[in-house]
C-alpha cells in the first residue's frame, strides 16, 4: 500500500507539475475544494489519464472520480481494490 501511495504522490508531482509540494501533501489532505490543494476538474481529468497509464485503472464517470480522487489515500485504496499496483 505504501508503495502505491508513493507512486500516487509521484503522479501528482509530475502530472500536475506540483513537484516538491506533492511530498509535503498528507495522505488525507483533500485534493479538491477548500482546505486542500484546490485542484479543479481539468486537474481531475489529468489525474484520471495518469492513473490509467500508471496503474491500468479506469475511472469512467464523474461520480466515481469525486469519490476516488478525494485524497491520496482514497486513490491508493481504489488502485488496490482494483487489484492493481
Amino acid at each position, binding site marked *: 500500500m505504501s508503495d502505491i501511495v508513493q507512486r500516487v504522490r509521484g503522479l501528482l508531482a509530475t502530472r500536475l507539475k506540483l513537484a516538491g509540494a506533492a511530498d509535503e501533501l498528507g495522505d488525507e489532505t483533500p485534493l479538491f475544494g477548500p482546505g486542500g490543494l484546490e485542484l479543479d476538474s*481539468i486537474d*481531475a481529468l489529468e489525474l484520471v*489519464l495518469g492513473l490509467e497509464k500508471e496503474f491500468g485503472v479506469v475511472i469512467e464517470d464523474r461520480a466515481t*472520480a469525486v469519490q476516488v480522487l478525494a485524497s491520496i489515500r482514497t486513490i491508493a485504496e481504489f488502485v488496490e481494490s482494483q487489484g492493481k499496483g
Partner: protein
Amino acid sequence: MGADPLSRLPHGIAFRFVDRILEVIPGQRVVALKNVTGDDPHLQGHFPGDPLMPGVLLVEAMAQTAGLLLPEGSFAVLAQIKEARFRRPVVPGDQVRIEAEHRTGLGSLHRFTLQACVDGTPVAEAEIVLAITTPGDRGS
C-alpha cells in the same frame, strides 16, 4: 449521408476552420481537411505579402476537428491547450490533414490528442480539453 456533417459544429461559416471530413469513427477518431488559400481573410494581415497560417488558428482547426467527435448537438469551448507545437509553416496551397483522437472524458470535459500534417509531414500537434457547455453560459 444527408445534411452537411460539418453543420454539427456550432461555429458560423466565418469562423470555421475545417473544410471536409475524411474519416470518422464516432466518439473515437476523426480525420478532417483544412485547405489553406490566399483568400482566407486572416492571411491578408498575417502577414502582408508573406501569408502564414497563424498557429492559434491551427489549434482552432484542430479543436474544431476534435469537436466533431462530441455528441450531436454539443456546444463546447476550449478548456485547456497542452503540449502545442508548431513544427513547420503552413502557407496558402497547403492542405492540412488533421487527426483527432478522443483520449478520455470526465463529466463535461473531454481530452483529445491532435496532429496536423501537410503532405504527410507533421506541421503541428497538441493535446486539448473541450468543455461541453450551454450557449450563452459565460459563468465559470
